[in-house]
């Protein structure tokens, strides 16, 4: 007899930057039965129920359903398949079926994405690089004997499959695991249900870790809540709040409207566009320098810089730092968040945008903006796939600088000011013993559907980089609706600090300060 069958291509393996397997496809054995060949259906059902962890009555019903041939269990774990095989029951057999396996369970689930039952990659890397990973199926036309064995002397026309490419990610499994651990601990402490941590390499935009909660197990997507599939680092936006002040101050210095010696009298509020915008808790700081704006997280100071910049320049710098447009990261499902067109700005928007309200950003956008400050002023396109290997060899992804957003001098000044914000300011809780840290806290209000803000609920965040003297890592921590409300930034800083300690030790970074 002649058969015409597809030869499925092997889906590519996904590795982390050190070669650890993050996702791979393995053929697992599916158990089928031909009930007519089973001498004692009840006994067989009882034996199988123990091994498969199923109800014997259900198996009996299936075996007695009258079907000539049926699957009893699909893609069994190998140990279970071996145990069933050892029963040596007549009328049972195995057929191999491919299954995507994720050895680290739910770690990096949002980066990886998943593969649907029909073999299509969805979300994350699996979705973005689906064509590359999937390969091209082959085809085999062959003559076979009654036992379905291919005849050596028979007709044979074969087009071999082209296997999918193996991907090497920029993700570091150790850093990813640390980020997920710190995020879960922070959310548990704050009884919060959602949050994000993003870690990037400021020198080239490589994404080292993305932790997003709520999460899911890539192998159990069928039962996952759809909201858990959303990667909050790229497909969720929020008003970044005070973390945006670093961008405003950088824009002011770069545009030449302020410098580090600029001082103003902080009254606890600033009037702009006919509105009065207050500092947090209405506190008046008195004479305040530019550095102290970041140390004290003074809204009035950010409004002062924004007003000096004017709407056009502030808007332009927001866009130059990458806000309002997708970063272009190679992950499926990214959104651009929103910076409204200048024509739609009200006069007060200059003030609110200066301290991160009235616009939205994704955590990854914020991380990349801080990466630009950390690396000397260049905005990079973040990327997740460092290389891929196929039949033609290895292909490496080149880092892509998007544009210079501020000069090296401005970036150096911001690094110093943000370091001071940690050493001397409200962000002191993020300080490390033997390393310099630069960063800024953020407490954002949550817009409600009626155009106002939700009462007494916040999004706490911390964005920073370390070591500040020679930045190697940028991290953004976000906690949605922390139980401690305005004090949620403390938990965000704890998470940042715990992560930074682990990462610096793991990366064997030399301390830049005396302990």
């Amino acid at each position: 007899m002649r058969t015409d069958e597809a030869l499925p291509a092997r889906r590519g393996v996904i590795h982390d930057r050190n070669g650890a397997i993050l996702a791979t496809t393995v053929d697992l054995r599916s158990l089928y039965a031909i009930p007519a060949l089973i001498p004692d259906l009840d006994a067989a059902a009882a034996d199988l129920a123990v091994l498969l962890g199923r109800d014997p009555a259900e198996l009996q019903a299936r075996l007695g359903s009258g079907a000539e041939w049926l699957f009893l269990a699909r893609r069994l774990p190998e140990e279970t398949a071996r145990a069933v095989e050892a029963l040596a029951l007549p009328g049972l057999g195995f057929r191999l079926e491919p299954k995507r396996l994720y050895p680290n369970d739910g770690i990096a689930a949002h980066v990886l994405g998943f593969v649907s039952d029909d073999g299509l990659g969805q979300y994350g890397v699996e979705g973005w690089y689906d064509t590359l990973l999937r390969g091209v199926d082959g085809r085999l036309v062959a003559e076979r004997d009654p036992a379905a064995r291919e005849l050596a002397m028979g007709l044979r026309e074969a087009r071999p499959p082209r296997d999918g490419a193996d991907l090497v990610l920029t993700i570091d499994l150790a850093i990813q695991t640390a980020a997920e651990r710190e995020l879960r601990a922070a959310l548990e402490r704050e009884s919060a249900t959602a949050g994000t941590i993003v870690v990037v390499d400021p020198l080239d935009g490589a994404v080292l870790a993305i932790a997003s909660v709520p999460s899911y197990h890539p192998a159990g997507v069928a039962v996952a809540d759809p909201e858990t599939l959303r990667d909050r680092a790229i497909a969720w936006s929020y008003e970044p709040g005070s973390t945006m002040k670093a961008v405003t101050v950088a824009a002011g210095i770069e545009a030449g409207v302020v410098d580090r010696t600029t001082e103003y009298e902080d009254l606890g509020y600033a009037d702009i566009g006919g509105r009065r915008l207050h500092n947090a808790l209405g506190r008046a700081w008195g004479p305040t320098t530019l550095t102290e704006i970041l140390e004290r997280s003074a809204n009035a100071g950010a409004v002062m810089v924004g007003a000096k910049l004017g709407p056009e320049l502030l808007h332009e710098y927001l866009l130059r730092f990458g806000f309002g447009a997708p970063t272009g990261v190679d992950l499926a499902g990214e959104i651009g968040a929103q910076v409204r067109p200048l024509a739609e700005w009200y006069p007060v928007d200059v003030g609110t945008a200066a301290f991160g309200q009235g616009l939205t950003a994704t955590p990854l956008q914020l991380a990349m903006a801080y990466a630009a400050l950390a690396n000397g002023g260049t905005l990079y396109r973040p990327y997740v796939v460092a290389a891929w290997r196929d039949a033609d060899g290895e292909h490496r992804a080149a880092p892509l600088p998007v544009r210079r957003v501020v000069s090296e001098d401005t970036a150096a000044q911001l690094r110093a000011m943000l370091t001071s914000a940690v050493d001397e300011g409200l962000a002191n809780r993020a300080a490390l013993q033997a390393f310099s840290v630069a960063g800024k806290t953020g407490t954002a209000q949550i817009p409600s559907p009626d155009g106002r803000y939700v009462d007494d609920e916040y999004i706490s965040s911390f964005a920073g980089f370390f070591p500040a003297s020679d930045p190697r890592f940028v991290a953004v921590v976000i906690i949605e609706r922390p139980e401690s409300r305005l004090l949620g930034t403390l938990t965000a800083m704890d998470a940042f600090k715990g992560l930074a300690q682990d990462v610096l030790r793991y990366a064997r970074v030399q301390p830049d300060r005396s302990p």
Partner: protein
Amino acid sequence: MIATLPLRRVGPARRSAARARPAATRRRGRSTVRERKANLTWEVRSFASASAAIALGFVLALLYLSQTTAISAGGYELQRLQAERDEVARQSALLEVRLAQLDSPARIEADATRIGLVRVSHVLVVPAEKLAIRR
């Protein structure tokens, strides 16, 4: 094609008649014998050739059959070996997955916690420069 000629029997009466015949006749008779001998040789040769051809055909058929059987058996063996290779590769892939599971930092951390290990609260950093100066 095998040609056959009828064999003639030579009786005693004919032999005496031949003795009575003159020398020319006897010479003619000898040449006839030679022809007969030649005819006989040709017949034997034809028979032998035919037999050899049959035998050769038989041997070739046997050879062909044995070769075909060997190729078929080889084909089955090849498929068996390919299946064995695929199974070994599958087992290898499963072991790689198992190795990755065991190497997973999350699993190691969970196991460490389970046996009572805790994270260090403080990491002591020893500056290398000071040590170098002391030396």
